[in-house]
């Protein structure tokens, strides 16, 4: 069985550790988000500086990115890279070091957020350890530790990729190789340049590029890389079009980073830079369509997999959400939309759909498929798997539509010069829906984590063939 070669190269303990740590940190992120949403409803339970709602906001966004996605993707890389290259990762000891170092970084970052040490870079709030703009130390330099951690991750996974350089690389490895290089460059650029070198509008262009690159050049390559690996593997058929994969990859590499400035449109950043960003962002929509078409054509003839394989269901609902988010991008990036929706909940809904609706769904697909393999046991409860999936699909979908409408209401009321208090009062029902859908998502997550822990403890014996779709068509 071709699918089973290379299993001995994989270190399952590291995968297990990263996936479970990631899921637990996702709980931290979601609970922080839940608490933050309570502030909008007037029921925030804590007072005092440490547990203030602003700090919850930092925890919510940063734990989703650095706690959950980075841990999840790293766990996934430990499975995929050795399988594709036929080589082990550099060192298992280094793997354990990276794992513990990364969790230490997360704890230090949380400590920094709670004690007012966050850096003023959106999605890069990890403390620099220095007073803003100076070299006077006031905290542990977490940023520096993240760079060291990222370099170790790169060494760990680039070693097998480099050793396999004479082979013909599969598309997943294109994404991972370039994505790991981009991760280091992006992080260095975003956390250092605006802080010490670039004030004002030039710095804003750079932080816009940083937020954008973090999603576009780390999270997206990891996400598409895993899709290109797991979907054909589970379906037991090749991806539909190799040419479309090539177009998708190179167009992502070229166009995606050019759109960075679109986070600050109609701003003091020079207009020609904004126009460039708008045009390339619309171009990305074409790329996205090719990739999504490629995946849906791959599924053609195997539609029943959506019923029989939970992992495929996560992957493809995620792909639908991906298409919706990117379709939205192509419109919302224009000035016509920007003047209404920028600064409103529309943007918040967009960010939730891409982070929680797309990449989190794909990682849940990976967890759904890998966890029984890692634990050598079958899933403990089928119904909890179902609850997890449906609570998330309905919860994230409803939250997205709710925040999108809230954003339009806010945007038009702001343009029409309504009293600010009236805007808040009109937003309140939408914020209630947001909190309720948030609770659904958290409940789904608890189902998943309970199921993961019980599977590891008390699942039935593992059956390899159960996890693939039979080779013949429907």
């Amino acid at each position, binding site marked *: 069985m071709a699918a089973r070669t290379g299993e001995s190269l994989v270190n399952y303990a590291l995968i297990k550790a990263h996936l479970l740590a990631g899921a637990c940190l996702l709980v931290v992120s979601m609970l922080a988000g839940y608490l933050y949403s309570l502030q909008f409803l007037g029921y925030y339970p804590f007072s005092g500086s440490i547990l203030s709602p602003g700090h919850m906001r930092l925890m919510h966004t940063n734990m989703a990115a650095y706690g959950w996605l980075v841990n999840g993707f790293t766990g996934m890389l430990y499975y995929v890279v050795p399988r594709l290259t036929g080589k082990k990762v550099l060192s298992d000891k280094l793997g354990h070091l990276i794992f513990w170092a990364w969790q230490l970084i997360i704890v230090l970052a949380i400590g920094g957020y709670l004690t007012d040490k966050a850096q003023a870079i959106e999605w890069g709030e990890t403390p620099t350890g220095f007073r803003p703009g100076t070299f006077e130390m006031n905290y542990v330099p977490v940023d520096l530790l993240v760079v060291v951690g990222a370099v170790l991750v790169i060494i760990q996974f680039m070693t097998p990729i480099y050793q396999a350089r004479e082979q013909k690389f599969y598309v997943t490895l294109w994404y991972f190789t370039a994505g790991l290089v981009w991760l280091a460059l992006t992080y260095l650029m975003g956390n250092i340049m605006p802080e010490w070198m670039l004030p004002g509008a030039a710095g804003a262009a750079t932080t816009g590029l940083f937020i954008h690159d973090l999603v576009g050049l780390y999270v997206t390559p990891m996400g598409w890389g895993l899709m290109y690996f797991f979907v054909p593997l589970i379906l037991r058929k090749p991806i539909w079009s190799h040419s479309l994969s090539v177009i998708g990859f190179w167009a992502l590499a070229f166009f995606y*980073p050019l759109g960075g400035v679109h986070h600050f449109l109609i701003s003091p950043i020079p207009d020609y830079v904004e126009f460039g960003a708008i045009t390339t962002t619309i171009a990305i929509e074409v790329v996205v369509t090719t990739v999504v078409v490629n995946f849906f054509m791959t599924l053609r003839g195997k539609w029943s997999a959506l019923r029989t394989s939970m992992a495929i269901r996560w992957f493809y609902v995620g792909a639908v959400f991906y298409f919706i988010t990117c379709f939205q991008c192509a419109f919302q990036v224009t000035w016509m939309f920007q003047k209404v929706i920028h600064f409103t909940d529309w943007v918040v809904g967009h960010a939730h759909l891409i982070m929680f609706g797309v990449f989190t769904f794909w990682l849940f697909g990976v967890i759904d498929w890998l966890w029984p393999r890692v634990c050598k046991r079958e899933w403990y409860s089928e119904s909890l798997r179902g609850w997890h999936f449906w609570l998330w699909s309905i919860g994230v979908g409803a939250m997205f539509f709710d925040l999108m409408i809230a954003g339009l209401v806010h945007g038009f009321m702001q343009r029409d010069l309504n009293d600010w*208090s009236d805007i808040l009062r009109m937003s309140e029902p939408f914020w209630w829906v947001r909190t309720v859908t948030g609770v659904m998502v958290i409940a789904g997550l608890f189902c998943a984590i309970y199921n993961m822990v019980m599977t590891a403890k008390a699942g039935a014996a593992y059956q390899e063939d159960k996890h693939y779709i039979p080779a013949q068509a429907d």
Partner: protein
Amino acid sequence: MERFYTLVFIAGVGCFAIAFLLSMVFPWMSLYSYHGMDYQTLEQLAEKPSKEFVLLAEKFPDSFKQHYGAVTPQSYAQALQRGRDVYVGQACWHCHSQYVRVVSNEHVRWGAPSSAQEYQNALNQPHLWGTRRVGPDLAREGGRKTNDWHIAHFINPKSVVPHSVMPPYPFYFDEKGVPDADGIALITYLQWLGTVQAGIPVAERVTP
């Protein structure tokens, strides 16, 4: 095409570098080539302490003296920097943006649209433009409200804005409403916002 070195150097480094050039180096060069885009250090910004800073010193002499001494450019600079640190640390800038756009009638609500020049200073490094406006924009906040309004608002926002969703920050004030070092700094910073640009209309045509 899809060989190791192509992926690392063309896709990885190359595409990143093109984007870096177009979205960061070009705007940076344009902005620096404009006339009058000189960078102002904190000392230059703090040369003349604001009226509100003087009023804080007069109204709360004990607390002010203890934390900042006298009203000098140095103590003003110290308060501005500390106020910004608190503003960043408490993530204020995630709910209050700091730039007025030329669209959506924002100039009517908040005053003159933001220009690149007013962000060329130490207190905008990194910038605090923000991406979400739960509360109003603060780019033109300086001088709009009195110090007393800010104190009442920080201790309990709902006392002055009944439908506010802003969290209270009573821990920067004692039970009599006297601000501590952070409270003085935060108000000083807020009263500074927007004062770099001259000729800002303070009068409000609508209530923000």
